[in-house]
């Protein structure tokens, strides 16, 4: 049974990780290998060209900076809003407490 568990876990790891692997290998494949007739699994002539295009014409730098800004801001605001609310719901008893708790759970969708 233990062997079966380890097998399943390994298969799951391959299922979970393979797309990542493919993503990384594709990032370094030149166009000719990406569109080659016979599948190329690992790039034979790896290139940094795609990263160059991503940072250059595709504006990855700006996108990355924006994501960081949005991520930080969202985290801070969320904590600032949620922490007091959580404290109030747990620590105090008041009319409408149940309703608030339910509403907060419902609106996450």
């Amino acid at each position: 049974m233990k062997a079966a568990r380890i097998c399943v876990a390994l298969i799951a790891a391959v299922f979970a990780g393979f797309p990542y692997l493919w993503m990384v290998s594709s990032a370094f494949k030149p166009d000719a290998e990406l569109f080659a007739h016979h599948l190329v699994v690992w790039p034979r002539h790896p290139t940094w060209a795609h990263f160059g295009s991503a940072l250059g014409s595709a504006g990855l730098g700006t996108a990355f900076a924006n994501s960081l800004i949005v991520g930080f801001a969202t985290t801070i605001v969320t904590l600032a809003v949620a922490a007091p609310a959580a404290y109030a719901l747990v620590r105090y008893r008041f009319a409408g407490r149940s309703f608030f708790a339910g509403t907060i759970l419902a609106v996450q969708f």
Partner: protein
Amino acid sequence: MNGRETRTALAFLAPSLCVIVVLLAYPLARTLVLSLYRYNLAQVLGKPARFVGLENYRDLATSPFFWHVVLATLAFAGTCVVGTLAVGTIVALALEDAFPGRSALRVVVALPWAMPAVAASIVWKWLFDDQHGPLDAFLSALGLHAFAGFSWTANALVAFAAVAVIVAWQTFPFVTITLLAGFATLPRSVYEAAAVDGISDWRRTCAITLPMLGPLFLTLIVLLMIWDVKVFTQMYVMTGGGPGRGTYVLGLYAWREGFASVHLGVAAAIAAAMSALLAIFVGAYVRLARGSTA
């Protein structure tokens, strides 16, 4: 209950109430109002909108395509839920007991959860590609030559299955991690007693572990159902609704009406219908979640 406590509590809740009213209740109300109007590109640019009452809803209710999309959405979501739960549970059971390398595998298995939906959809679209994708190449190398150049998006049912794989891939880590946490809450005493009786691993799982997690499974089913009814990104990237409008789900339909066609009144009506559908599941979720903590 004393008045001072209530005032303090309300002060602490004020920020969340602000967010809920401004960012949720108001837009929801506006959307419902919008669904009662004809609101197209001309109106976006300033022409006054015509009030049409429930006409948008009537048009949807009498449209066979709309009902087809509703059924397709529910069937698709149901399939995703079953698939995700199955995979997530099997993996959680595999990782339940310790073995060398388990912590490393736990990390790898959690990775799909970390990828943004757009990125995951693009990578999987490439994996499923009929001309350059490794999946078809791998399957025909295994001897299944029917899969050489097989297109995963040429047929609606096959396309739904493919997108379900993407959704399941992204979501199963959540199920696995939740279940692993659930396993940790189960009382040791029951297991010790069972071990004394000499119970097999398999029976232990089927007769004790899974049944005791019943409520957790129910909560997971409802939660997954909500998320999977809302699926948009994966379907948009993978099929765009094709072939021939065969893989439309509610989210995609609302988007097309709203942004491709700029029929914002109709899109609002679809969104309202979707919210009504989701409200059933959300109500169930809130019931379940509060039931276990209140």
